[in-house]
Every structure is written in structure tokens, then in C-alpha cells.
């Protein structure tokens, strides 16, 4: 002669209250959903962007080094020797090296553009070997070669080409560069490891010295080293570039900057996850609130169920199940919402959408847990209600 609530009956009886008040149910689900969505989106976006950075490092390799002019002891800008590029190329462990130098000139669409409207574009001298050293690609046309370097020919960085309104080189476009017409012979694809090239117009050294008095001092040299000896080579480059003042040479490894970017996003992720957790907590409190009100409103029903033979446990289980269901529904909605947010963000940035499965699992578990915790107190109140008191209420 035991009272018994079938598992198959627990679910419909627990959802009855939710179905009776769809608006309130939706709102309390929303609270948890926002918290979960925030956490899933943070993890998804972080993972997607990290994957993108890792792919960049992969594409460009970790064996690229750059050598730039550093500072003199007095803080002035140092100058790399004219021979630096050739000396570096001869260094042990270096596969290839290509020098570039900024030229104090500007490039315009044509000769009628006011001089001030430079569009943030720069003019640089580039070795013909730059394309190979950077492992960069062309969108159209060709790169500078020793012959072209003597003529007023220019290769545009990806952003620069767009800014100058040039999509391809088929109809022989020209640009107004430092007071001369230059023919555009090629357009670069974006260069991940040397983004400064995206906004540059690249010309050969001979034409630069002839037209603009370029003295041959490089400002930045790109170096491709043997992968296994990259660190060692980095240590040799200062002395090779400027034997007299190796301390005035700045050697860096661009892949390190990208790796650092991942570390930085890691710190931001923790902060954002914390905010998501706070939202989740607030959502849980919302569920608890709604359930406490529901218990008060349904006192008569609780009394009736007790009179029909429900134990305290049965009544408590009914409300606890209700709250776990609310949490779970919030979790599912949140995962869907967070995935959508990740997807749209990744799509806009051109990344691959990656949502870590453990994060989804953890989010759902957290939502159910929050639902369960939120339901404990209301369920206990419902279970503790005296049947006669409950039946007397209106």
C-alpha cells in the first residue's frame, strides 16, 4: 500500500505548470539561455579565431625572421648598412633574404589628386626575391624582377590596389608615384606576416635611386631560415647585418607575435566567460523566483495532490523536475543561440566556424545544474507545505 508516482507521469505533471504559463516559462528560459549563449559564443569565437591564427602561422611558417633598423644609443633612428641584405643572405642557416626600404614618396590614382590625400599608402623599395622569401602570392600580374626593377614599374599591396581602384593589370593601369607615372605590373595577395606590405606600393631599387635618390639603406629585411635553426640564426643576424653596431639592429620573429595574440585572447576569454557565468547565475535566480511564485499560486493544487496520496518527495520532485527542465531548455536554446552568434561572427571575418564540443557539453551540464539548484528551495517549500494549510488557501 505505497503511494507511487510513475516516471512516465512525472514529466507531464512537471510540464503542466510550464505549459499553463508560456510567457513566464519563455522568460525564465531566456535568462539561462542568454548566459549559456554568451559562454558558448565566447568559446566558439575564441576557438575559431585561434584556429585562424594557427592557420596563419602554419601558412607562413615559424622560420621567418625580420631584421629592421633599431635605435642608436642616443635614441635616433639607426640606419642599416647598404650591404646588410647581401651579408645576411650569406649567413649560415639562412635560406633566403630580401630587403625592403621605405621611400619618402606617395602614390596616387592619378596626377590630379591633391597631395594630402595619400590614403595611408606607402612607397617601398623591394628586392625581387621578396615574393619567394615571404612565400607570398600574387592576385594578378607578376612581381618585380631584376629587369623590371630598372623601370617605373610597381607592384601594389592588396589593400593599396583596392584603394587606388585597381582590380587587375590586364589593361595596363598606371599610378602617379612621386611625380612620375608608374605601370602597375602586379597585385599582391594579403601578406599575413608583413601586413605593412598590404598598404605599400613596391618599386625596384635602381629606379628608386634614379628617380628619388634612394641611397640603398634597407629599412627591413625579411629572412627565411632553416626551421630547425631559426632561433640560432636569429642570434647571428645582428652582427651579420651591421658588424660595427649589432646592438642597433632589431631582429624579430613574426610568428611569435601571432602566438602572443593567442595568449592575449586567452586572458580576454576568461573575463568574458566570467561575465557569461554571471548572466547564467542571474538566469538561475530568475528560475528560482518564478518557481517560488508558482508554488505560492499552486498551493491548492499541491494540497489536492497530497490529499490524493502524493508524498512530500513526489511534490518536491514535481517542482524540481520543472526547474531542471527549465534549465535544460535554457541550455539548449543557449547553445543554439551561441552557435549562431559564433557562426555569424566567424562568417563575417572569413574564419572557419569551430565550436568546441566539450564547451557545448559543459554548457548543457551547467544549465541543468543551475536549473536543479534554482529548483531546490522552491521544491523544498512545496514539499514542506502542510496539506491542510495548502487546501485552505484560495
Amino acid at each position, binding site marked *: 500500500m505505497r503511494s507511487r*508516482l510513475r516516471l512516465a*507521469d512525472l514529466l507531464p505533471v512537471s510540464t503542466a505548470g510550464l505549459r*499553463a504559463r508560456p510567457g513566464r516559462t519563455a522568460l525564465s528560459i531566456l535568462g539561462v539561455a542568454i548566459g549559456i549563449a554568451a559562454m558558448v559564443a565566447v568559446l566558439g569565437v575564441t576557438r575559431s579565431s585561434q584556429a585562424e591564427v594557427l592557420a596563419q602561422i602554419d601558412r607562413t611558417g615559424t622560420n621567418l625572421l625580420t631584421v629592421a633598423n633599431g635605435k642608436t644609443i642616443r635614441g635616433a633612428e639607426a640606419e642599416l648598412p647598404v650591404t646588410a641584405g647581401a651579408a645576411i643572405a650569406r649567413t649560415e642557416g639562412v635560406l633566403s633574404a630580401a630587403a625592403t626600404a621605405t621611400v619618402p614618396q606617395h602614390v596616387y590614382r592619378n596626377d590630379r589628386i591633391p597631395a594630402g590625400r595619400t590614403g595611408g599608402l606607402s612607397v617601398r623599395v623591394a628586392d625581387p626575391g621578396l615574393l619567394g622569401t615571404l612565400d607570398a602570392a600574387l592576385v594578378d600580374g607578376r612581381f618585380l624582377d631584376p629587369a623590371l626593377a630598372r623601370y617605373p614599374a610597381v607592384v601594389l599591396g592588396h589593400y593599396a590596389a583596392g584603394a587606388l581602384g585597381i582590380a587587375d593589370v590586364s589593361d595596363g593601369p598606371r599610378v602617379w608615384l612621386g611625380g612620375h607615372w608608374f605601370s602597375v605590373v602586379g597585385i599582391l595577395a594579403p601578406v599575413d606576416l608583413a601586413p605593412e606590405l598590404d598598404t605599400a606600393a613596391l618599386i625596384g631599387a635602381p629606379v628608386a635611386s634614379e628617380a628619388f635618390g634612394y641611397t640603398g639603406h634597407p629599412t627591413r629585411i625579411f629572412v627565411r631560415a632553416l626551421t630547425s635553426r631559426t632561433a640560432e640564426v636569429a642570434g647571428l643576424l645582428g652582427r651579420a647585418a651591421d658588424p660595427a653596431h649589432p646592438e642597433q639592429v632589431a631582429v624579430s620573429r613574426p610568428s611569435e607575435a601571432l602566438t602572443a595574440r593567442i595568449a592575449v585572447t586567452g586572458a580576454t576569454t576568461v573575463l568574458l566567460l566570467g561575465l557569461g557565468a554571471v548572466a547564467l547565475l542571474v538566469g538561475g535566480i530568475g528560475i528560482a523566483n518564478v518557481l517560488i511564485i508558482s508554488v505560492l499560486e499552486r498551493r491548492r493544487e499541491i494540497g489536492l495532490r*497530497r*490529499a*490524493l496520496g*502524493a508524498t*512530500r518527495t*513526489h511534490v518536491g520532485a514535481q517542482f524540481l523536475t520543472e526547474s531542471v527542465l527549465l534549465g535544460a531548455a535554457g541550455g539548449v536554446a543557449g547553445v543554439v543561440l551561441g552557435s549562431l552568434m559564433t557562426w555569424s561572427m566567424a562568417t563575417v571575418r572569413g574564419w572557419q566556424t569551430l565550436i568546441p564540443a566539450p564547451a557545448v557539453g559543459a554548457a548543457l551540464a551547467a544549465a541543468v545544474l543551475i536549473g536543479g539548484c534554482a529548483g531546490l528551495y522552491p521544491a523544498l517549500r512545496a514539499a514542506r507545505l502542510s496539506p491542510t494549510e495548502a487546501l485552505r488557501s484560495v
Partner: protein
Amino acid sequence: MTPVLELRDVHKVYPGTPPVASLRGVTVTVHAGDLVAVVGPSGSGKTTLLNLAAGLDRPSRGSVRIAGEPVERLGDRQLSGVRAHRLGVVFQQFVLLERSTALENVATGLFYRGVPAPERRRAAHAALDRAGLAHRAGFPVAHLSGGERQRVAIARSLVGRPAVVLADEPTGNLDSAAGDSVVALLHDLNAGGVTIVVITHDERIAASMRRRVSLRDGLVVADTGGGS
């Protein structure tokens, strides 16, 4: 045979300032097949008595046995089991699940016995039929008249064939015609073998019952017409 209800020297004191002694030593025994009216002025302890007999509350002193089970020795789980299996209760305010149909409401009478849903529905149909409301089975109870609602509540109380049906002022919220038909139903059911205890204010209804227990100030002042 064991009595279906046995209250012996039952006291009930509600704590408070001052404490209210609602029952002050009530002894009543109800046997299978009885039809008992409990009468008395307002505040005499009738509802208190019913709550104790229904296992919804526990006496401050004295013993209550429901179908032979001593309430004072049962935990919440076991006492709930007694309510689920041995008792049917009818309230003055009906207390129905307003969003459900008549049939679903009657079926909840078997909900906490672990009876599967199809079987609950079959039994609910039979009980609704006994209450003369088979034609309203699929109606939402919110659409039924007061008399019909009370019949649903009565069908719910007897769907599990309890040892005793306890009704607290079942006609209190009904007009006299609807009230009379509910009383007639109770007589019918009793004739069919259902043991019934009815609390009522109405002298006319009380007079129609075989046995009358009169309460005053928490004490039984008369117990007339009982067969045994």
C-alpha cells in the same frame, strides 16, 4: 471486521496565542457501509475532524486508525500511501485541475497509486458513469456547472474504490436543486456499497442520513442512528 475509521479520544490543539483546542476528546467509529452525517455549528471542529480522518493532519493526542492503520505510527510516505489507496476526499470548493477535462480530473484519483495511464482512464470512465456524468467526460471542467463540478470531484474520490469517502460540505457551494442531486448521488453510492462520511450544515441533508454525529466545541454531543 475492522472499522474503516476509528478515532479514539482525539484531541487537536492548534498552537498559537492563545492555542485553539479544536477537538477535545472525540471518539467516533465508522464501519464499512456506513452513511454518516457530521453536523455542528461553525467552529465546532468538523473540518478538523475530517482532516484527521483523511490523514491530512495528525492529532495532538489520541489515536486515529484509517482502515486499521494507526496514523501515529506512519511516516509521511506510509500515510500518503494510506491516502492514495484507502481514502477519497470531496471538498466544498471542489478543487479541480481547471485546465483539464472531467475525465482527466477523475483519473488523477489514481495518479499516486502508480496505475498506468490507460488503466486510469478506463477506471475514470466507469467512475464518471457512476456519478452520472459520462456525457461530460471530455469537457474541460472550467466549462461545467457547479453541480457537475462536484460530481466530477465525487467521481474522483471513488475512482480507486476507497474504504471510505469523506466529504466536507459537498453542497455548500451549490444551489438547493444541485445540492439535492448531489445528496441523492451520495445515497445511491452508499446503496451500492460505498462508505461515506458527510460534513454538513444543512439539517435537511443530515436528517436524510442513517447516522448523525453532532459536534459542539470540539466534543461529540450526540451520535444517533448508528446500527451498531
